[in-house]
């Protein structure tokens, strides 16, 4: 199981930038000053990309930790934290 945890770490590392790429691509495609829907509003996209960027970074850090075997053993008491 630990080998699988580490191997999947690579996937999470790649997933982070992929999420940002798709969000930016979605913004470019759908922002339309003449549009009336939420997905046409630049403000909405700015908020979503701003909030998702740190989350995507978090996913990358999660992947990095997984790859380095940080999740091979989970803490069993607060003294390990």
């Amino acid at each position, binding site marked *: 199981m630990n080998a699988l945890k580490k191997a999947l770490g690579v996937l999470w590392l790649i997933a982070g930038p992929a999420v940002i790429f798709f969000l930016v691509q979605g913004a470019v495609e759908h922002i339309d000053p003449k549009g009336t829907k939420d997905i046409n509003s630049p403000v909405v996209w700015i908020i979503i990309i701003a909030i998702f960027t740190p989350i995507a970074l*978090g996913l990358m850090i999660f992947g990095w930790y997984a790859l380095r075997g940080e999740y091979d053993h989970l803490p069993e008491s607060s003294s390990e934290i």
Partner: protein
Amino acid sequence: MKNDTASSICKVIGASSVGTMIEWYDFYIFGMLAKTISVQFFPEGNTTAALLSTLAIFAAGFIVRPFGALVFGRLGDLIGRKYTFLLTLVLMGGSTFLIGLVPGYKSIGIAAPLLVLLLRLLQGLALGGEYGGAATYVAEHAPTHRRGFFTSWIQTTATLGLFVALGVIMLVKMNMPDEQFNTEWGGWRYPFWFSILLVVVSIYIRMKMHESPLFAKLKSEGKTSANPLRESFRNKANFKMVLLALFGAVMGQGVVWYTGQFYAQSFLETKCTLEFEQSRTVMLWAIAFATPFFLFFGWLSDKIGRKWIMMLGMLLGILTYRPIFGYFLETTQAITKNAEAKISGITEEYTETSTGERIRTHTTVYSLADGSGFREVQRDTLDTGGAVKAAGPVIVAEKHLSSSQYWKFAGLVFLLILYVTMVYGPIAAFLVEIFPTKIRYTSMSLPYHIGNGVFGGLVPFIGLLLTTSFPGDPLVGLWYPIGVAALCLVIGVIYLNNRIDKNVED
């Protein structure tokens, strides 16, 4: 002695749950009355008002909630749980009551949407701080073998808040004509005013509570954290658990929760064009029957562990969302004009637009043999002589289900909410057990509000985005919650363990 302990824990659960439920009620009524609120405060055609409206909807949920988790989480770990979640209650209740007092755009212009935006942001901030405090407070009073069960009472509050909000709005709406409900100082304001009564009662109850015994002990020993934010997010050992909690549990829980409780209702109203009363009562029945399962799964998690119950809830959502929503759509699409359709009523209404044009709204009510029905609405523009100048399209609206269809819908929505109870019932105990007492409030609040506010809150937006990009599939919006839940399921199954922490006092 045993009775004293039981009575004391009941008071702790009661006081925490009632306050949290009121906070959810306050947060929901804004969303449920969004249509009326937008007419009163964010009129169409005004670009500044439209921008403020967008900020009120998106910023309150996505930015301010996690920010509130940080602000109040830190406060809760520094000064204590009791005073922090008392403060969030006052902030939430006060903001809600004040929204009900803000005059409309017609009276005070752009100040109206500005004030509403400010108060909505305060609501989001307060909500971000409330949940972590209530869950921590109850968990720190609970014995090890009943932690899941006791904290599951807090988990019922989000659903009960929705139930009370739906009920109060329906009650007001059913007791006055639509026109009276929607005017500037009309009935839509009553649910906001009602909130102050609930909050005063809850503040009174919470004032009488004592500080969490674990936090009080830490404080008396001088062992509280000096900088909870730094210790939560800059200490690698703790931060990696924050990430695991988010990606392995709360992210999936957030989308399952949002899909069952909100997306379902919006889908029934907009995609299935179900009439207002049926779409709301279907939800009310489903919520009423499903709510006890929060307690059941909380209790079960004390016996078999938290992990597999949450993972099963996600798996069931992944496997059944498309068939269930597909059934809703197919059933309502079949309610259409056929050889057996009978006209059971025709009405005509005349209104005048601001440009002086006369509009005739012609409504035909059709009943089908099985008891279902629908309305056909056509809006024509008339000239001064009364002749049709421009005929509007015939729109099929307000579909009405037959009795058997209605109960099948209620049963399926019940299933969707049952998944919610599986993922949401045990999660407070799960989060509390991961983090140490001195930084628990901060560490658990942030992943919770990112999972629910951001991942869950984005369900309708990404749904719309997918529907726009792939218009051929009306169920395409479901791929977002399915995808996020699937990712979370994989991470949860592989990385989480199913251990119940015996000692949360450390």
